[in-house]
């Protein structure tokens, strides 16, 4: 039985008066690769932010590695949505990746040559070695996402949260990212990914967390990712094209 790396109990969160998440309960085992799936406004990003203390929770408790978030911060890596930062900021790809090491370097200390090399290795792993000195504003969407992932890699965390890393990237980058995610999983790390594309869920993730303001279903992809559960998650208002659930098109009427 694998170790429990994340235990969430009775979590709820809101923006102003709108409760976005309520009664969220789930447990994540080490070495799993989980897709967090749900319609727009289901609270997927909010869930991650609340877990990481970036958004205040109303109720509930979150347990990482049987401890509190503050104590194990360094074992947790986070890849925010690409659109959450200003890519016009004057810096290059290598520098952004080096930011992943800031926690290890220690505050108020300067990164050494060794840290830069470590960052460069991570870029290389993401197939971005040639772009190390490139201005980040001049990178394509897919390249920016790879830089973000490289930054997460250098953190060398045990548990990763990624917010829509596959949105707006080219097929090659998608493949590169998934290869890395599966590699992370193989080396015993735990990864949770907010994901939008229902067609690829079965190929990409071994666990699925269906979310629509609360956990609809959570478990192995085989057991959980069924027509019924998907329909339930997307408000029961799904139009099925063909017979396969991979051709699901969520209806716009709600």
């Amino acid at each position, binding site marked *: 039985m694998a170790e429990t790396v994340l235990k969430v109990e009775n979590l709820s969160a809101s923006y102003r008066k709108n409760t976005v998440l309520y009664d969220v309960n789930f447990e994540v085992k080490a070495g799993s690769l989980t897709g967090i799936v749900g319609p727009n406004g289901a609270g997927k990003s909010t869930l991650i932010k609340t877990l990481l203390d970036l958004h205040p929770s109303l109720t509930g408790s979150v347990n990482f590695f049987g401890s509190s978030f503050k104590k194990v911060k360094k074992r947790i890596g986070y890849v925010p949505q690409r659109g959450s930062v200003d890519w016009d900021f004057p810096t290059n790809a290598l520098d952004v990746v080096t930011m992943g090491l800031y926690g290890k370097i220690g505050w*108020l200390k300067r990164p050494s040559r060794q840290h830069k090399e470590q960052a460069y290795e991570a870029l290389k792993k993401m197939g971005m070695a040639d772009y190390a000195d490139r201005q980040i504003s001049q990178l394509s969407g897919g390249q920016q996402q790879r830089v973000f992932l490289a930054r997460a890699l250098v953190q060398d965390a045990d548990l990763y949260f990624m917010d829509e890393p596959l949105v707006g990237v080219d097929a090659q980058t998608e493949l590169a990212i998934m290869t890395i995610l599966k590699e992370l999983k193989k080396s015993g790390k735990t990864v949770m990914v907010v994901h939008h594309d229902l067609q690829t869920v079965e190929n990409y993730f071994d666990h699925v967390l269906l979310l629509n303001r609360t956990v609809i279903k959570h478990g192995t992809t085989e057991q959980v990712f069924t027509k019924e559960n998907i329909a339930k998650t997307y408000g029961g208002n799904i139009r099925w094209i063909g017979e396969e659930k991979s051709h699901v098109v969520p209806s716009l009427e709600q």
Partner: protein
Amino acid sequence: MWSLLLNSNTQWVLFSTMILGIAAGLIGCLSFWKRQSLLSDALAHAALPGVIIAFLLFGEKSLFVLIPGAALSALIGAAFIQWISSSTRISEDSAMGMILSIFYGLGIMLLTIANRTAGGNQSGLDTFIFGQAASMVKSDVITMLCLALIVIFIVFIAFKEWKIYLFDPQFAQGMGLSIKSMNGLYIAVLVTTIVIGIQAVGVILIAALLIIPPVSARYWTHSFKTMLLLSSLIGGISGAVGTTISALGSGWPTGPFIVIVAATLFVISLVFGKEKGLLIKYLSFRMHKKQIDVQHVNVHLRTRGMMK
């Protein structure tokens, strides 16, 4: 002119406005990337009532007394802006506009009252509106220098932290950097820079010293570090040259001259800047066009040749 510049008091004043320019150039870069350039203007105007109230309370015009008053008043302004934009439907820029004009109006009203009181007329409080570096005495200069150096030091020592705070605050927080304390520190250094500048540059124009140097520096570099250095250089030059010019005439205000010098440097950057400066943009466009034209002509000639 030279005799004036060699005067030791002028030298001190010159030196202090230069350091002020450097500090403002640095802090301006932080505001620029926080996309809050206008906040500095609002806070500068919000400092005025505090200056006058401090004068009315203590009857003294030394920076030592006026700076805490100015800082307090600017911080209250900042708190109001924060509160209005987070708890009402009013957007942040409207909130800044409101606070800017309300506090400034209040300041002018208090100034009128102060000027009517005995001795108020001679106090020279008016200099706080457009700035009068020459009116600074040695203790003012020292106060200003120390605070400016502290501000410069804070930016310098935490360079890496500022960078990640400005680029990706959420990620920074995830790694354990407290964004709340960074926000507090940012407001603290911003307000400090503003209040030490109001005597030399004035409440109306100090924002220019925080806004113009970073936008000028942006035209020359793609590195945050170089941008900070260039921006502080531009700020320092503006401060020193502007003060020198204003020292040439008696009673000339300092602020406007500093701003004019900064604006000149901005125009130079805008035209000649190596990163997307107008001239470079035009030239590279021309060159590219020529290349494409040549290619087209070649293709054209070749196809014609084949047809014959």
